C-alpha cells in the first residue's frame, strides 16, 4: 500500500481526533493559523511545522461528555466507595444494602463540597456539573467564605456548619500543587483549629504525580485523592515521555523541545514549557491548564500568538 507523507498521516490523525474527541473545535484554517506562528526561528519552517503538527496529534483533550463522566467517577470512586468500604469494614462486612445506604446518606448530609478558588474559577465551575451528574442536593455545596461565620456575641469566627463532619475541596486540575496549597492552607488550618475532628479532603480530577504528592506531603488535607494521575510519561520532553516512544523517524524529541523552548521563552519567559515546567499536552472542554506547553494556549496581547487550544487566563487586578 502507498506510504503517505508524514504530514498527511498527521493530518489524518488530527482530523479523526477532531471529529471523534475534540468536539470539532478545530478546522484546517485554525491549524494553519497556529502553524503560521512557527516562522523558522529555530529550525526551518517545514521542520518546525512538522514537529508541531506531531505534538498537536498527541494532544490529550477531554470534552464535555468525558468531563461529565469523570465527575460521576470522582463522586463514586473518591467519595462514595471509600465511605462504603469503611462502613462495611466497621460492620462485619455487612451486605445489607438498606443499612449501607442509610449510613452513607448520613455521611453525605454531614459533608459539604467546595471548589478550589473563587466562584469564577474552574474548580468552582466543576461543582455545578458535579452536582448535576451525581444528582446531589444543592445545600451540600458552599462557597469557601461560608465555612466560617462570626459569632454575634463573642465576635470570634466559628465554623458555620456545626453538624458538618467533612469538607471536600473539588478541583479539576493539579499541576505543581502550589496553587491549591496556597489557596487552602490558612483556611484548612483555621477550620481544624476550630474543630480538630473535621475531615478535610482534596479531590482532583487530573493531577501530575509530583504535584499531587506535593499536596499530600504538605499535610494541609487529611486525604488527597486524584482520579487521573499523570505520571512522568506525560511530561512531553521527559526521559520517559510517552509521546516520543514510537515517534516517526522524521520527528526528534530534542528538536521538538528546542522549538517549544525557543517560542515558549518568547511567550512566557518564566515558564517556556508550561507552569511548573510540567510540559503537558492536555486540555479540557472548559479551559486549557497553564501547565500545558504555552505554544498551544498562549493568547495574550503581547507577544501576539495564535493559540490552538485557547486558555482563558485568570486576570488579577491589583
Amino acid at each position, binding site marked *: 500500500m502507498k506510504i503517505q*507523507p508524514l504530514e498527511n498521516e498527521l*493530518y489524518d490523525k488530527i482530523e479523526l481526533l477532531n471529529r471523534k474527541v475534540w468536539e*470539532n473545535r478545530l*478546522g484546517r484554517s485554525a491549524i494553519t493559523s497556529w502553524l503560521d506562528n512557527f516562522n523558522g526561528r529555530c529550525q526551518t519552517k517545514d521542520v518546525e511545522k512538522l514537529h508541531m503538527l506531531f505534538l498537536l496529534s498527541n494532544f490529550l483533550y477531554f470534552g464535555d461528555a468525558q468531563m461529565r463522566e469523570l465527575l460521576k467517577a470522582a463522586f463514586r470512586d473518591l467519595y462514595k466507595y471509600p465511605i462504603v468500604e469503611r462502613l462495611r469494614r466497621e460492620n462485619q462486612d455487612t451486605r445489607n444494602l438498606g443499612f449501607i445506604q442509610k449510613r452513607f446518606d448520613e455521611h453525605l448530609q454531614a459533608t459539604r463540597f467546595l471548589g478550589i478558588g473563587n466562584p469564577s474559577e474552574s474548580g468552582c465551575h466543576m461543582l455545578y456539573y458535579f452536582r448535576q451528574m451525581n444528582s446531589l442536593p444543592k445545600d451540600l455545596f458552599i462557597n469557601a467564605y461560608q465555612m466560617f461565620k462570626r459569632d454575634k456575641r463573642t465576635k470570634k469566627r466559628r465554623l458555620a456548619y456545626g453538624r458538618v463532619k467533612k469538607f471536600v475541596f473539588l478541583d479539576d486540575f493539579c499541576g505543581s500543587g502550589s496553587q491549591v496549597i496556597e489557596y487552602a492552607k490558612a483556611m484548612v488550618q483555621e477550620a481544624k483549629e476550630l474543630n480538630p475532628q473535621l475531615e478535610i479532603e482534596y479531590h482532583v480530577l487530573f493531577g501530575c504525580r509530583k504535584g499531587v504528592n506535593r499536596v499530600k506531603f504538605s499535610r494541609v488535607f487529611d486525604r488527597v485523592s486524584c482520579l487521573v494521575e499523570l505520571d512522568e510519561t506525560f511530561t512531553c520532553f521527559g526521559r520517559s515521555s510517552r509521546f516520543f516512544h514510537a515517534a516517526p523517524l522524521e520527528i526528534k524529541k530534542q528538536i521538538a523541545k528546542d522549538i517549544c523552548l525557543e517560542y515558549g521563552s518568547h511567550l512566557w519567559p518564566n515558564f517556556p514549557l508550561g507552569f511548573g515546567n510540567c510540559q503537558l499536552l492536555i486540555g479540557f472542554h472548559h479551559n486549557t491548564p497553564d501547565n500545558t506547553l504555552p505554544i498551544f494556549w498562549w493568547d495574550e496581547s503581547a507577544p501576539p500568538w495564535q493559540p490552538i487550544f485557547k486558555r482563558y487566563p485568570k486576570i488579577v487586578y491589583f
Partner: protein
Amino acid sequence: MHPLSKNPFNLTKANDYSDAQINDYWVDMPYGTGFLGMLKPSSPMPTLILGGKGSGKTHLMRYCSYEIQKLRHAGRLPLAIKSDGYIGIYTRCEGLNANRFSGKGQSIDAWRCVFEYYMELFLSDLLLAHVKDLLGSSPEFKRRESAFCRSVLKLFDEDDSEGPTKLDSLINSLRSLRRDIDEKVNNCAITRRLQVKVRATRSRLIFGIPKAIQMFSDLHGVQVLYLIDELENFSEDQQKYLFTLVRERSGPSSMKIGARLYGIKTYSTFSGDEEIKEGSEYEKLLLDEHLRSNPRGYNAFARRLIVSKLAESGPRDDDKALAIKADDIDQMLEGRKDSRFYEAETQQFVMKYEGREPPHFQKLRSKLSSAAKASRPPGAQNAGEISKIIDMLRVPGFPLLEKVNLMLLYKAWSEGANLAKSAHSIAGMCAEFQQPRGLQSIYGVTYGHFAQDLLAQLFRESDLPQRYCGIDSFIHMSMGLPRLLLIILKHVYNWAIFNNEQPFSGPAISAESQRKGVWEAALWFFDDAKSKGEEGAFLQDCLKRLAELFREVRFADKPVECSLCSFSANTSKISAKAKENVELAEKYSLLIRVQRGQRDRNSMRVDAKYQINSLLAPLWDLPIYRRGALPIDTELMGAIFDPDMVQTFDKLVASRIAGMNAPFHQKASKEKSAQQDLFYVVDTHD
C-alpha cells in the same frame, strides 16, 4: 448544531433506516424498468437477490414490504395493494437468531422439524398481523372474520373447531405457540430436552394462509410476497429448508430471498436433495452486477440518490426535479480541469520544477549515464550525447508531452535503436502532434492510451497527490454498490468540514478534501470487505500483491498496458487454493469479474478476467477506469493467491517488470512474446 452532525451521508445502511427513511430515500433507476421491474414483486416466480455488501438489497426488499406500501399509498389502502398485486412480508434472517436451532444434544432431524414449524408460525404471524392491519375495519372483514379464522385453523394438523374466531385471538395464539418454542429452545442447552409439539406440516401455513385471504374481495388476486433478507445468516440446513419452500411454492404466494454473494451455502432441497433450478424454479437477480452493466443508468441513479440524501429534510422532489438537481452535483465537487495536454493539471508540477531539472529527466539522465558505462546504448554514449537527447525531448510548459517523449524513447532503447536518432524523430512527432489533427499519429495513439498513466507518473515522481475527484469518478469507484458511494461522500463531507469548506452548500468541495475522503473510504473498504480470521488476512495480502504488481507495471518506464487495474488468467489451470481465493475475493467484491472475459492473444482461449475494485485504487495509485488487462500466467497467479507459493512473488514480479524498465536487461524476446507490443494496445474499456 455542528455541520458534522448534519452530514447527510452518515447513515449508509438500510437496516438503520426507519420505514419513513426507506420510503423517502427511495430512488429508482431512471432508465429501463427500474428496480421494481427487475424484482417483479407481483410475479409468482421466486427470486434470489444476490449482491455485495451495500448493493441495495435490503432497501429494495424493505421498499416492497407492507410497512412501506402503507406509507407509499397512505390514504389509498387497500385499493393500492390490490393495484400493486402483492402484499410484502419482510423479515431478516438475523432477527430470528437461527443459530439457536442446532446442537445442545439434539439430532439434526429434531432441529429441522422445530425450525420449520417455528418459521411457519413466524411468517404466518407477520402475514396475519398485516391482514388485520389492512382490513381490520372493513365491514366485509368483520362479516367473514370467523370463517377466515376457521380456514386458517384447518391448516393445522389437528382440527381445532373450538379455536379462536377473532383474528386478534388467532394471532395471539400463534404468538403464544412461538413463545413456547422460544422458551424450550432457549433452555434446551440446560434441560437437554426439546419437547416441542409440531402442529403444522411444512409449508401448510405459509402457502395456505395466502389462499385463505383470497376470500376477502380487497385481497382477491393479491399475491403474498415473502421477502426474506440476509439468508447468509441461515445454516446450510436452514437454507435447504427455504429452497424447499421455493420448490414447493403454491397458490398466490411467492418469495424473494436476499443474500450476499458469499451467503449461499447450498441450492439443495429436501426433495430428494435435488437442487432448485434457475430459470424454471427461481430467477437470480445479481444486483450490483446489474447496476455495473448499465453505467449510464447507474450514474443517473447515483446522482439522484445523492440529491435525495441532500434534500433529507426538505419536501420530496418529483422525478424531473431530481434529474435537474442531479446535474448540479458536478458543480458541487471540484473536478478535473480541462485544458490542452493537461496544462492546467500539471501547472503545479511546472511551478515546482521551475529552473530545475524535473525528476523524469533526472531519472533518464541517471539511467543513460549508468548504461553508457556498461552496455553503451547507441547514440547516448557520453554526457554530451545524453544532454543533447534530453534537450530534444523537452517541451517547456507541457510536462505530459515530455513524459510521452520519454516513454517512446524508452521503447526505442528497449529495441536497441540509436537513441539520438530516436530522440530526433520523437521530437518531430511531438511537434507534429501539437498541430491540429495530430491525434491521428502514432504519437497521438500513445498519448490517447497512456496520458492518464503518465500523468499519474508525473505526480508520483514529484510527490504531488494523485487526483481522485469529481462525482463521476466517485460513482464509478463505487462499482455498483451504492453504499460505497455514500461512504466516500461521508468521508469527503467530513474532510470538507475540517478544511473549513461548506460542502454541498458553498463553493465546490476542494480536490484535497475529496482526495482525503476517498482515501479514508478506501482504507475502510479494504478493512471491511474481508472474511474473518486468517483467511481474511491472507485475502488482504493477495490483494496487496496483485495491486503491487499493477503498480509496478503502471509506473514502469515502458508500461505494457494502459489504465491497468484488471487481469486475465486461465483459472482452470491454477491451483485449487489460488482459485478459492480468487473466488473469495470476488464474493467480497474486492475483485469484480468482467463478464465477457479476455481472449488469450496466443491461443484465443477465453480467460477469466477480473478488475480490482476501483475503490481500492487510491491505496496504490492505480487507475479507476479499466482499459488494458494484464495476462497473468499460472505461476504468478499462484504466487499471488496460493499461500504455498507466495514466496516466489518478489522474484517473479522482478522478472516480469525487468523488461519494462531501463536498461531492459530481461530477455526482450521472451517479454515480447508474452506481452503485446507497446503500440498494440487492446482497448478493452467498456
